[in-house]
């Protein structure tokens, strides 16, 4: 089988993994090596695929052969599909040549479980070692830690990669039992804990010795599949928050389940992937990481799922109208961030600009405030937009209309159903 065919099979098998950022890397250019990851701080998309997703890394599987039988996965043992495996040489050669042509920022290497977790991990380690040591590759590498692999191997992997991830995939243990019978919660959490501890230790060593080796310097991430099981948004968001708090994860990715297989326990094949729900979860995740929100502020037992009609921040604002309007000349940073239509950058611009004099409504768009949403929730020097009058109902309609052009496409039909409400 030639490399073109292998690439086709092993890309196709890897495409459902959502993680494709290269953030947090900090390898500066080195003499005799190729590449740097210093610009990756802001995330560097090398292209966007036809589904609108950012492509940063060569995202492939080492092999799609797998001894496991996770029900939701195209690579599961019982699925009849063409199998292939890269040799470490082929993989290193592809990565370097793509990197030189500026097609990619680095490699995202995952794999089916070939023979055993240890065997698979060793194969990955060999590829990465070849890339780092022989080809002197100094770009970004994200590697998947295979649940069940020996800790020594995970350790070796971590010294070669910038980021490690262990995919949780199914947000609950019940889901795992039913759909991924070969995996246990323990097998997933053990490497996560190890990666966190080792990363912490490596940071401390680095503080003492400048040349101490770096263990997964860009931290770890994970992915949750949304819509394959009955878990609600509240459950998923609480899990996310726990992962950020307790495991110091850099990112949690969500992947709307695309029905690729027929199975009694899974959504039927003609069910559309829940893209809008995935979008809402990303928005909420953003609020947790940058806006100082907590999961329980956004959802509770009475409202366990996000409102498909408006984004989570607007939802929160609608439920807390007494918090508003916020006066932009007086409010602190945290309160500014609560205003729909005000982001991290515009909140900072407001703080800086108001030091030079009082702000008026007409200043705000230039500071990056999205007035279509923000107008209902703020005052500037005591004033609101001219002729702005609204009831809770018209407010909701206004917010829905303001967000509509920004939503992922397929859920539009769903939305128009709600628009009449």
């Amino acid at each position, binding site marked *: 089988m030639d*490399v073109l065919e292998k*690439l086709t099979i092993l*890309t*196709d098998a890897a*495409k*459902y993994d959502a993680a494709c950022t290269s953030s947090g890397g900090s390898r500066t*250019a080195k003499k005799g090596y*190729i*590449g*740097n990851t210093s*610009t990756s701080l802001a995330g*560097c*998309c090398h*292209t*966007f*695929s*036809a*589904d*609108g*997703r*950012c*492509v*940063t890394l*060569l*995202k492939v599987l080492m092999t799609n052969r797998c001894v496991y039988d996770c029900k939701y996965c195209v690579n599961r043992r019982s699925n009849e599909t063409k199998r292939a495996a890269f*040799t470490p*040489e082929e993989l*290193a*050669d*592809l990565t*370097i*040549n*793509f990197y*030189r*042509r*500026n*097609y990619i920022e680095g490699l995202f290497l995952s794999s089916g479980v070939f*023979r*055993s977790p*240890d*065997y698979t991990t*060793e194969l990955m380690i*060999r590829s990465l070692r070849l890339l780092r040591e*022989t*080809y*002197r590759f100094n770009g970004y590498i994200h590697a998947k830690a295979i649940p069940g692999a020996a800790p020594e191997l995970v350790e070796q992997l971590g010294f070669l990669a910038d980021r490690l991830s262990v995919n949780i995939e199914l947000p609950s243990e019940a889901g795992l039992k039913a759909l991924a019978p070969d995996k246990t919660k323990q097998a997933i959490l053990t490497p996560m804990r190890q990666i966190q501890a080792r990363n912490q230790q490596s940071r401390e060593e680095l503080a003492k010795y400048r040349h101490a080796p770096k263990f997964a310097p860009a931290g770890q991430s994970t992915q949750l599949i949304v819509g394959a099981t009955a878990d609600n948004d509240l459950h998923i968001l609480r899990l996310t928050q726990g992962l950020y708090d307790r495991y110091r994860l850099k990112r949690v990715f969500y992947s*709307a389940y*695309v029905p690729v297989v027929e199975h009694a326990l899974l959504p039927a094949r003609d069910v559309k992937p829940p893209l809008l729900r995935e979008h809402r979860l990303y928005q909420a995740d953003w609020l947790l990481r940058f806006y100082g929100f907590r999961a329980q502020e956004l959802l509770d037992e009475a409202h366990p799922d996000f409102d498909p009609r408006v984004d989570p921040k607007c939802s929160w604002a609608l439920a807390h109208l007494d918090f508003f309007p916020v006066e932009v000349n007086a409010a602190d940073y945290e309160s500014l961030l609560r205003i729909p239509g005000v982001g991290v950058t515009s909140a900072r611009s407001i703080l*800086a*600009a108001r*030091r*030079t004099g009082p702000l008026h409504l*007409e*200043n*705000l768009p*230039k*500071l*990056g405030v999205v007035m279509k949403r923000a107008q209902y929730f703020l005052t500037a020097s005591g004033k609101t937009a001219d002729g702005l009058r609204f009831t809770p109902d018209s407010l909701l309609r206004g917010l829905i209309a303001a967000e509509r052009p920004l939503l*992922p*496409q397929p859920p539009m039909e769903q939305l128009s159903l709600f628009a009449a409400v």
Partner: protein
Amino acid sequence: MTEMVYCYDGSFEGFLCCVFDSYANREVLTAICRDEDFIPTLFASRAIPTDRDHAGRVYRKIVKCSPWAAELVRKGFLTCLPDREIHLYRLVRKLLREGPGFLGNLSDPVLYPVARAVRHLEGEAHLLKGFVRFSDLGGVLGGEIEPKNRVLPILRGHFCARYLNEKFFLYDRTHREALFYAAGKAMIRPLADFQMAPPDENEAAYRLLWKRFYDTIAIKERYNPKCRMTNMPKRYWNTMTEFQDESYFTARSSPAAVSDPGAPAGIPAPGTLPAPGPSSPGSAP
């Protein structure tokens, strides 16, 4: 004070000299234009010679008031903002008159157009860090772009670090200039015309591999061309490998030009490879 139009040679130093001379002559400028763009108007005009010493004095003065303002002026000069010179001139005037206080207010009417244009420049440069495509032309990497702003000075540091041990060039079709890098030295030079050499077999093969990867990575159930277009406007597609037609993937030069596959120039060829098949004691299925 009288109202004046100044003409200069189009260089950054030349622009700074316009600022210098406007103070020396106690004149307020209504327009600053490049010598070749000058159209006689009702206003009096003056041709400003470029004097490096004058330029340096103005620039140092700006840096002293605010290093950030100096960066804005430098970068602002690279933008495609219409009448950028006069906007930059007004920014410098306000800075020298009032001091740097107003720079905190992004909605300031003099600052805003410049800051916005610079954001646009930086945004475009950021996208291009990803969207630039290089070809291996017998060991030298070459690429082409069609940016709205003059991004090469912004991209220089990034690509020189990325390809520290390579030789490369990047041609800007819009502004007809190119960034060259070899042996640790980089320079940007005007280049009136440029034709990219056709790919050899090795190059054509990697182009095809990339195109295949690109076509395969999309999930058809999530097809969303609008989202792709928002993130990656069509004007960039012209120079991107994955959007070229068939001829781009066909080799056209002699096999002699094909470089050693798998051993890219500037990187030592792989030494002894590890034995095939990793060992994993005690973990056989």
